[in-house]
């Protein structure tokens, strides 16, 4: 709280009453590990009942932020309120009101699903008379009620994740934090996890805060904050973010990429850049543009692709690189540090 933080202008001039109602309030939140600023002063509110997504490459500060909101890591600047409680001063109150699903499993593999659930219920002080009913309810929601007697070590990755989601709901938290809930799962399981998350959104009166680095998953969120290098670069609904990009994305493979970039600038006044190994740029009505491109570019083109704006393009338009490229050259050091500190 002592470090002065440059407010991250792009975000939020929320009305005071909106902030009062908000389930999560974050102001100038920062975390520094020695010389490394993992999170550099971020601001946002999450309203009750929202599915709020945190999107960014690995090492962007997503996990650190979630860890701070969950009281696992102490902020070095700013503050955050979760369910009305300060994460620094009122740690236990925050913990009672949140459910957590981490990137890595935190189940006891030697115990049965039911034993894991009961253990959680005891630790969180769930009243004894509702434990049984509540457990049945959440286990049925994730389709594991029939398997409750099985040892967790016999579960597949997807089942474990579902069990963790159920366990996180056991004490009826007001906010469920999902830190990369589908990482390391196959596409089919990923989509089934999403089905469960959406169903639970209907069944429970709950706010969901999640992080992901899968662009397609961010589309499930009501609002998305894109975070890069410890700062929120933009925050809006997926539709609004895509609409703001406005252009289709064109990628071409050419005989001479640098000549092509120069030619695009000179002949069409388009600024292109290399992304994922191809010359990439945005134009309105891309399909109509391609014939002109072939006719007038003057550099031989071997392949072309045109795509509607996706969150990938949103990310690119705000950060100048695609999420995959950002991960490829993203600060390895930061990532390692964040892990080392974040996972104790």
């Amino acid at each position, binding site marked *: 709280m002592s470090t002065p933080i440059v407010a991250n202008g792009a975000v939020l001039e929320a009305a005071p009453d909106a902030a009062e109602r908000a389930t999560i309030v974050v102001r100038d939140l920062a975390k520094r590990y020695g010389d490394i600023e993992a999170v550099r002063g971020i601001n946002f509110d999450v309203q009750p009942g929202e599915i709020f997504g945190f999107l960014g490459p690995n090492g962007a500060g997503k996990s650190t932020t979630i860890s701070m909101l969950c009281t*696992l890591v102490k902020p070095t600047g700013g503050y955050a309120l979760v369910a009305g409680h300060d994460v620094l001063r009122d740690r236990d109150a925050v913990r009672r009101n949140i459910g957590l699903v981490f990137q890595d499993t935190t189940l006891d593999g030697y115990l049965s699903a039911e034993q894991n659930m009961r253990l959680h219920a005891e630790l969180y002080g769930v*009243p004894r008379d509702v434990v049984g009913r509540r457990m049945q309810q959440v286990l049925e929601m994730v389709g594991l009620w029939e398997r409750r007697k099985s040892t967790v070590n016999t579960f597949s990755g997807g089942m474990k994740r579902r069990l963790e989601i159920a366990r996180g709901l056991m004490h009826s938290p007001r906010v469920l934090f999902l830190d990369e809930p589908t990482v390391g799962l196959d596409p089919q399981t990923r989509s089934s996890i999403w089905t469960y998350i959406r169903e639970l959104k209907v069944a429970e009166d709950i706010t969901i805060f999640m992080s992901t680095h899968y662009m397609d998953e961010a589309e499930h969120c009501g609002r998305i904050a894109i975070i890069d290098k410890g700062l929120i670069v933009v925050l809006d609904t997926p539709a609004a973010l895509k609409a703001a990009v406005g252009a289709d994305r064109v990628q071409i493979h050419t005989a001479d990429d640098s000549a092509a970039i120069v030619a695009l600038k000179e002949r069409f006044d388009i600024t292109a850049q290399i992304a994922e190994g191809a010359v990439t740029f945005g134009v309105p009505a891309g399909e109509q543009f391609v014939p002109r491109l072939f006719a007038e570019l003057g550099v031989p083109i071997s392949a072309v692709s045109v795509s509607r704006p996706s969150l990938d393009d949103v990310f690119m338009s705000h950060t100048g690189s695609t999420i995959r490229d950002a991960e490829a050259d993203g600060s390895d050091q930061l990532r390692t540090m964040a892990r080392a*500190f974040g996972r104790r």
Partner: protein
Amino acid sequence: MASTTTTRGPLAPAAPASGPNHQIAAVRVPASSLRGELRAVKIVWQRELIRFTKDRLRIVTSLVQPFLFLFVLGTGLSRLAGAGTHGVNLRTFVYPGVLCMSVMFIAIFSAASIVWDREFGFLREMMVAPVRRSSLVIGKCLGGATVAGFEGVILICMAGLVGVPYTPILILEIFALQLLVAFAITAFGVMAAARVKQMQSFMALTQMLIMPMYFLSGALFPVSGLPQWLTILNRIDPLTYAVDPMRRAVFAHLHISAAARLTLDPGVTWFGWHLPGLLEAGVVALLGLLMLSIAIFEFSRIE
């Protein structure tokens, strides 16, 4: 686990997943209370027991070492030591030490599970719970002590095989003392596990400490008339103060010559002063509590 199992009944009485306004969803978690903390202590303790009973191999393998010491080493060496023991069976003599040793090993293994829990992530589930870290640490230590104490009971059952009489008072004394050792060593292990993050390092560290503690404690030899350097090391070794009262208890129930008693059960002295057995047990208890406090402090610091 004491099961309050819900009757399975017809699947989902009110189709829980579909109704947005059903009542059980509103579990309200109560604010911190002593009762809540006790529930946490109990469940952490219970988990240790469940894990132990599921690991049958561990129950069996952990009995191998005491058997080796008692029957193989004890029997073999008794042929050499016959004259020195004044007719007392060497197995009877080493019994208290071997009992302490096996309890120690089990206790350390129980504490080691914290390191596993960290590696497999489960520790995090406990650390983020809205309970005090001290509850978790106390539950863990009690769990380790119970498991190790159970192992001790098996060895107590074998007392007759090595010439230790089954006198109720004696059994009770041995039981209480070994429980104390189990608790103190678990606390020591938990304290170490707060700092040491890898299983290999943890095992190496504890072996490095446990083995010397065992050998120096007088578990295998009488503690009087030793060279000075060994006497000093022996008196520093905390385990000395667990083995000695246990041996005194055993010898108090044996019918042996005064010479044998003097040689084999001289008792621990501080500068010529004989420590009473109760004080020795107090030393162990105090050290156990000290290590428990350090462990709690260490775990409370971890973010």
